[in-house]
């Protein structure tokens, strides 16, 4: 459609190295091509790089974009810049990571991150059975600024596992003795490995590892391997990228909550196109304050009471 040619959208991700965001970008690019609109993609240098995202938002405003898709690194701090964009008439959609407050964006297309955490928590608890009472858990979180996605997954996991989360808006304030400790990973391999090592040194008997995402899980696995613990520790994660699902197949990760970034990207681009055409705003999922793009637990060792799909099914749905 020719009238779409001057419509443009922006995609701003946390980094452009995490395969999740690489896929998200590809998905958005493809959707944009199909719709006949222009897409400009920007990213922070590292997970947590807030200023670069602000600069990118401003660039999108200057560029006369119709809307912005953003996975925010600092979910509170980004709000001012987002408000500025909305005031300038742009549609702002949070992808993957809700803003704080969530209604600072016009819409949010995301995994239900709390549910994603809860699923792997429930699965891990059921997997251990009786032993869950004596578990030794390592929590590999994202970053010290505790962005919403970080808190939701962590607290979801603990809830699913049956641990009191104290303040649900904050990780690290729990006092359950089963938690060996929290450490941050920046959501990448290097951080995952060092954090895992630190926690192992604290307590070599760790047998459950929660990880914020699959790159961090991969790093944690390297650490466990170097300590000869790769076979007797349960790693759970979130993402469901093809490499991650392959890791589940290989028994490296016990279970992972699969997200659908291509869906987020596609929906986001479509929503912007729609908005540019007639000003329609996207709707939320029934009963939620965001549009839930869905989450499925991927494992080959299903447990009672927790819905899951097989690795084979997971591989069909996976991305990257």
């Amino acid at each position, binding site marked *: 459609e020719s009238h779409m040619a001057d419509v443009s959208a922006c995609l701003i991700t946390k980094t452009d190295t995490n395969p999740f965001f690489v896929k998200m970008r590809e998905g958005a690019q493809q959707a944009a091509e199909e719709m006949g609109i222009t897409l400009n993609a920007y990213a922070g240098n590292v997970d947590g790089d807030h*200023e670069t995202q602000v600069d990118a938002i*401003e*660039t999108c405003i*200057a560029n006369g974009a119709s809307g912005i898709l953003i996975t925010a690194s600092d979910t509170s701090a980004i709000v*001012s810049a987002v408000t500025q964009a909305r005031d300038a008439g742009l549609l702002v959609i949070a992808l993957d990571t809700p803003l704080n407050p969530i209604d600072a964006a016009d819409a949010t297309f995301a995994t239900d991150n709390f549910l994603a955490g809860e699923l792997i928590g429930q699965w891990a608890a059921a997997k251990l059975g009786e032993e869950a009472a004596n578990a030794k858990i390592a929590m590999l979180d994202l970053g010290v*600024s*505790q962005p919403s996605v970080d808190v939701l997954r962590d607290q979801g996991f603990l809830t699913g596992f049956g641990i009191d989360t104290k303040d649900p808006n904050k990780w690290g304030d729990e006092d359950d003795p089963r938690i060996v400790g929290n450490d941050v990973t920046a959501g990448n391999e290097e951080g995952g490995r060092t954090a895992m090592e630190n926690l192992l040194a604290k307590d070599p008997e760790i047998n459950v590892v929660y990880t914020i995402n699959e790159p961090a899980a991969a790093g944690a696995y390297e650490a466990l391997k170097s300590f000869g613990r790769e076979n007797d520790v349960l790693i759970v994660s979130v993402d469901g990228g093809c490499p991650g699902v392959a890791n589940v197949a290989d028994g490296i990760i016990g279970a992972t909550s699969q997200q659908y970034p291509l869906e987020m990207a596609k929906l986001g681009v479509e929503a912007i196109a729609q908005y540019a055409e007639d000003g329609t705003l996207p709707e939320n999922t029934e009963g939620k304050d965001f549009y839930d793009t869905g989450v499925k637990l991927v494992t080959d060792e299903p447990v009672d009471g927790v819905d899951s799909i097989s690795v084979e099914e997971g591989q069909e749905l996976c991305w990257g």
Partner: protein
Amino acid sequence: MPTDTDHYETSVRERRAEAVAEFADHKPSPLQRVQHALHVTPALVPLIVLLASIVVFGALLGSRFFSPFALTLILQQVQIVGIVAAAQSLVILTAGIDLSVGAIMVLSSVVMGQFTFRYGIPGPVAVACGLAVGTACGFLNGWLVARMKLPPFIVTLGTWQIFLATNYLYSANETIRAQDIEATAPILQFFGAKFSIGGAVFTVGVVFMITLILGLGWVLRHTAWGRHVYALGDDAEAAQLSGVDVKRTLISVYMLSGLICAFAGWALIGRIGSVSPTSGYDANIESITAVVIGGISLFGGRGSIMGSLFGALIVGVFSLGLRLLGADAQWTYFFIGVLIIAAVAVDQWIRKVSA
């Protein structure tokens, strides 16, 4: 005391030059005249580069770039680095370097925020406290450099870590939300206040940055303190002997630098709306980059503070221009890297021939 001997060496060289000058050819070529002009006006090279890059991106991008809106957006995007670069310039003029600028900036902004929200101190008082903390950090740097005679690079490498750790520990990594600040202590966001003239949008922070740099330029040129800063950067031993209180001047420079960084922290709240202890991580490298591209010598005593404003703007023009072109952000870094090396190579060339 390398400065002592540098001076000696220079004077010996000068003397030699004179004795031989008698039989050397003296008519300057046009190229030499250009070099001379560049030598006496150190901010000229970055200014030319700045204008050239605006013209090039303007040609490539048309009105998307060459509009009051986009051009003033650049000002907004460089304001933090620009303010910090002013602080960095002062320190570098004394032949020092300050790696802790970013940490002082964030720590000060966190103090402003936490004092308001944790202790319920009124906004203006909290801001004053933040400015005082920045100045105190600068004092610590200055004291270690001037009194303990430790190398600035190492001192500020150390205090960088110390201030940043203090910032995280004190703030408990807590972001203070823009909405809360707006409700309780809007003065914290003062530097973010906007006004527009035509399509051009200015913020208080941008006005502050420009005023600050013009003001510092004036002070450096028209007050005794300013002359002393240049003198001690040029040759600390000579300055001391000719009556400059080197230690006091040095400490005052680091304190002023700390204060300016605290203002940058205030401006940072205005820019991002919230108080975020994780911001400004790269401010030290970015400010040094601006200063270097701006033509201030890392060896001290030479260069104009206007240059670092131009340096910061050049980086801003490249960043926005390339982003608008849809180029991968990495190209910006690539070109900035090339620009840094080119800037110092040109500088070397100017010095060599006009020496």
